[in-house]
């Protein structure tokens, strides 16, 4: 199981994946936006997205959970 967490305070611009989806290593899960920069959050291992903790427009703090991949 891999927990994907936010590396910095940011706005959730786009949610690319959905709960139950199969993802591969390197797939984009969500795209964050902070300081006029888009930051894609990628899957680090292949698996299934069992939890998606954010929605578009949410603000995440550093360390907040974004998704769980199993």
């Amino acid at each position, binding site marked *: 199981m891999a927990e994907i967490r936010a*590396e*910095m*305070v*940011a*706005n959730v611009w786009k949610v690319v994946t959905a709960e139950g989806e199969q993802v591969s290593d390197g797939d984009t899960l969500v795209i964050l*936006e*902070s*300081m*006029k*920069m888009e*930051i894609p959050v990628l899957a680090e291992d292949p698996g299934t997205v069992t939890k998606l903790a954010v929605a578009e427009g949410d*603000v995440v703090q550093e360390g907040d959970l974004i998704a769980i991949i199993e």
Partner: protein
Amino acid sequence: MVESGLIESVLVANRGEIARRVLRTARRLGIRSVAVYSEADADLPFVREADEAVLVGPAPPAQSYLDQAAIIGAAQRTGVRAIHPGYGFLSEHPEFAARTEAAGLIWVGPPPVAIELMGDKINARNLMAEAGVPVAAGTVEPVTSADQAVAAAAAIGYPVMVKAAAGGGGIGMSAAAGDAELRAAFETARSRAERFFGSPAILLERYLSPARHVEVQILGLASGRVLALGERDCSVQRRHQKVAEETPSPGISPALRGQMLAAAVRAGEVVGYRGAGTVEFLVDVRTGGFVFLEMNTRLQVEHPITEQVTGIDLVEQQLRIAGRGEVSFAGEAVEQQGHAVELRVYAEDPSRFLPSPGTISEWAEPAGPGIRVDAGYCVGNQVTMFYDPLLAKLCVHGATRDAALARARAAVADFRIAGVRTNLPFHADLLDSTEFSSGAYDTSVVGRLRP
């Protein structure tokens, strides 16, 4: 007391380091100043350094620094004569410039029509080509589909650069070397263009590589005459955004410099330019040829290095020209003295360049001969996610390039910032690299330093 003929009061419609920088010149000239700020910026130095400060809205730019009615309202309530837009935000919105003038205020910038002509990159390219300024092979009309893009690329020849026609700041820009890559680049560019610039228009241009990014500072005088105040080399970029700049450019010959300065003056004349502007070019490292890239119709972020080598305060000239006055120097007598380099200090990690918002717990600027720091923040300030990551510009002047770089190395080592990560360690690596210190670098230098 303000000198007669000079604007007596100005509102600065910006934030951070550039607001502070404009306010500094206003204060020196005895011009009454008004700052506007968002709820997130109440504690920043620029707010207390203005004679008066007006809260214009919440943190998101759309509700504060981009709120045209709120800013013009603040100018009217405080009774100022003029609005200085800085860079970014509303500085290149022809509509805002026109609204400012319609409200009876002086716009410290070029005529709105010049902003409009240069704001659309397709239009600007066509206009420059007509005027005899070299442009890269590219599309003369907006590209509206991926299929059209592929057809256009076949005529232009790969690699091509895909950009938003209304864009800036490198957002949505990417290079493509083949059809599949181009289709992906087109879709990315189009979604970014709509979201960031409110226009889906896309253009394709032949991508030059290796290339240097060299720009010319121009100043359109009240008389209509356009002066060129030397060039700046801005080839050190990450994600198509500048990180370090220097003047003079170590990569162009005197003959090429002369041609580029003349082309920049021509560009300014074609659009009836007034005030400070920058004409950007790409120089093909292999052939030594150059092409027009775009024109920025406002004060440029990296203007301080031009000020350091010429001794001219560009903001003062902007204010004088906006007031229909004379500039403070003789156009014929401008000479560059020595060499200057600007290092942009960003709140970002120094290896992957990812944003690093936070609270500044330590801030100690370097000082000494030839060192100028234009900073937007001080200790205790919060660096939020709402605005760009520029914390400060470390500008260093020396009698020669080597002397300037030696001073810059020491200044980077002396600059202490804690609480947010910064790219200062990257600047240390850049200054120590043989590629940068030799002067023989191009726009891919950052990628080679951070593979």
